[in-house]
């Protein structure tokens, strides 16, 4: 069925996933108890893994500039809190972000390929990716063409990712599967494997524009695909759940999921990111609470 020789590997990677089992396992890991010093460490680690994101039509230089400040120095008076991993913006705001973040170590990620729908010709998408890289994006977050994938045109998905990867050059490629539209875990696993075979550096759950976005079970399915792909090929691929991760508890559950599925090696911003906007302040609020023993009002934390 798969004409592409690279996709012959697919069946040997066992695509079947049992939904009930995945949900049970994800819930079990989410039940881990992370308290005291390990909670503080988790909060810092989570901050360092955030792709601080704004993806709205009304985004402006002012908004992005402010967000970049927050990305560099998340909490006033707390230098022990690391900066976030990256900011994630639309192509038109790459330059603003780039100059605001210069020398900070915070990367600039841009969405591309007719984000969020991906419904435009492949040629245009490749062109767009070349453009965003040229504008200075360190990382590119692409979307796969879900329509083609759902039609069973896996070869198209493979070639699409492959072409975009090539257009990325030195920039790093995160492939958004939009799991909320793929719907089944079998589809998610298959799309994960195809993306990795085609050269993804990261696989990512969602655009944040479709519900459900990131969930623990869907992330578990993708992490297991990453593990199997690593065992099969030796290649290390990163993971990025995005959308809907709002609380510290959520974030810690994701860290537990990574730790217990892929191991400590993956617990680094190089290999694990969380795409979020409101998560950061909840992490900071919990951090302050761990320090002082009391919760502070949300008004003590700047929005950007």
């Amino acid at each position, binding site marked *: 069925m798969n004409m592409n020789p690279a996709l012959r590997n697919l069946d040997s990677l*066992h695509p*079947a*996933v*049992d939904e*009930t*089992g*995945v949900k*049970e*396992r994800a819930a079990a890991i989410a*039940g*881990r*108890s*992370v*308290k*005291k*010093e*390990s*909670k*503080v*460490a*988790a909060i*810092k*680690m989570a901050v*360092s893994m955030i792709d601080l994101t704004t993806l709205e039509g009304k985004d402006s230089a002012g908004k992005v500039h402010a967000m970049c400040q927050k990305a560099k120095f998340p909490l006033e008076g707390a230098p022990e809190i*690391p*900066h976030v*991993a990256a900011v994630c913006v639309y192509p038109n705001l790459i330059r603003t972000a780039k100059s605001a973040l210069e020398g900070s*170590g915070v*990367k600039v990620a841009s969405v591309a390929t007719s984000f969020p729908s991906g419904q435009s010709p492949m040629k245009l998408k490749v062109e767009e990716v070349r453009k965003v890289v040229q504008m200075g994006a360190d*990382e590119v977050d692409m979307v796969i063409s879900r329509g083609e994938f759902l039609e069973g045109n896996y070869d198209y998905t493979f070639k699409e990712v492959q072409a975009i990867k090539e257009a990325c050059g030195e920039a*790093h490629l995160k492939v958004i599967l939009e799991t909320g539209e793929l719907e089944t875990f079998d589809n998610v696993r298959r799309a994960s494997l195809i993306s*990795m075979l085609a*050269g*993804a*550096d*990261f696989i990512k759950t969602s655009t944040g524009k479709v519900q459900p976005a990131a969930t623990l079970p869907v992330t578990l399915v993708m992490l*297991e695909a990453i*593990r199997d792909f690593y*065992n099969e090929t*030796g*290649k*290390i*691929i*990163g993971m990025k759940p995005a959308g809907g991760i709002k609380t510290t508890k959520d974030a810690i559950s994701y*860290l*537990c999921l990574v*730790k*217990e599925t892929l*191991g*400590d*090696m993956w*617990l*680094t*911003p*190089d*290999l694990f990111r969380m795409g979020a906007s409101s998560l950061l302040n909840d992490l900071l609020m919990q951090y302050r609470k761990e320090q002082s023993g009391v919760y502070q009002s949300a008004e003590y934390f700047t929005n950007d």
Partner: protein
Amino acid sequence: MTFREKTSAPADRSITSGGSRGNGTAKKAVWEYAPSAESTEHIQLRDRYDLFINGKWVKTRKYFPTINPATEEKIAEAAWASKVDVNRAVLAAEKAYNNVWSKTSPKERAKYIFRIARIMQEKAREFAVIETMDGGKPIKESKSVDVPLALAHFFYYAGWADKLKYAFPNQQFSSIGVVGQIIPWNFPLLMAAWKIAPALACGNTVVIKSAETTPLTLYKLAEVFQEAGLPDGVVNILSGAGDTGAAIVNHPKVKKIAFTGSTEVGKLIMRSVAGTSKKLTMELGGKAANIIMEDAPIDQAIEGIINGIYFNQGHVCCAGSRLFVQESIKQIVVKKLKHRLKSLRVGDPLDKNTDVGAINSKMQLKKITELVNSGVDEGCTLYQPECRLPDKGFWFKPSFFTNVAQSNRIAQEEIFGPVLSVLTFRTPKEAIEKANNTQYGLSAGIWTDKGSKIFKMVGAIKAGVVWSNTYNKFNPASPFGGYKESGFGREGGLQGLKEYLNF
């Protein structure tokens, strides 16, 4: 161990591309879960537990210590019921049956049982902590399985108490009288609930004996009965050893015996009641086949294997102790199993993150060790993950054997510990033959993505419970029990009611 900050400044955060990584990475940061022990402050335990007979605490001559298998420290003392005590308990139960319980309307019986369930629910945390301290099982399991399921059984059978004629329409039936119940140490509270709830719903009175190593939660249950105002003598609770059990079994006024435990003791009981009119239900040992077909969802099957054999340290009669893997996927399954074993957390049962707790007793540890040694001696390949076990207490690493044949001792005898035998098969037919080639028949598991295969296999496997694409799932509405030497009679569901009635 806690998270160590990266020593170098996080300046270089570049994502190296998909190829090899790890070269030049700074010292690896390790993030660990801090110890998270469940508090034991709220539990109330006495130093010494007398027998619970006729609604009162009754002293006896001998007492024995019950210890925490994770620390070897004594928790309390429990009474060792003698033949005289057993007689007293049976007479109390008989009196309560004749004078009170058989005259109590079914609706009233239901009220008592509902009340028991609700009080248990209020004390759920205390029950869970004591169950874990006395038996060594992870607090995670006693909180999410033992206690909720136990009270679910009371709720379920409370509902049936006044609806028995709808359960068995057009049939004449009556309660039995005094029933004797003997339960094991692996799920003390849960097994008590399985037995007491249907017995009471059907209008019987009870003499129940806990296992030697785990008497405490049953005595806590006695306190619940007192609080619920259950009439004196309706449930009498004893602790003791084999002689206590024998006295219950042989007492002429006990009309029915419900036993859960080893096949060996089950056979002894059957011998001693042979020729009497006593009714029997036996829930005995097992050596369940957990069958993984090549089209199975493998990662979820791995969880099923883990849950099947390492749940409650493998002290589970329906544990999936024989793993049958289709040969085409054997390598990948063994590889994934090894990987998964590494993330199992063995240690303090009261820690909320512990996956595998302590072995229930020194005796059981000895038995497991002996059987595992026999496996090694017979040439099977043993795998155990690296993990540090606590210095005190009874512990056994989660283990599995490969290169196992049906004829090996470890593949035939019930180990009742965290030890799995991995066997292989080539075709579904062979899997069925091998799964059934045992004297036991309590449970089995089948993993395949194909529904038609599930139905074919389930019909062919001689086991009381067959799970598909899951394992160790229990529900009060679902009957549980065995084929062959795994016993007879069913507990749970309508079938479980039937065992406590005369038709």
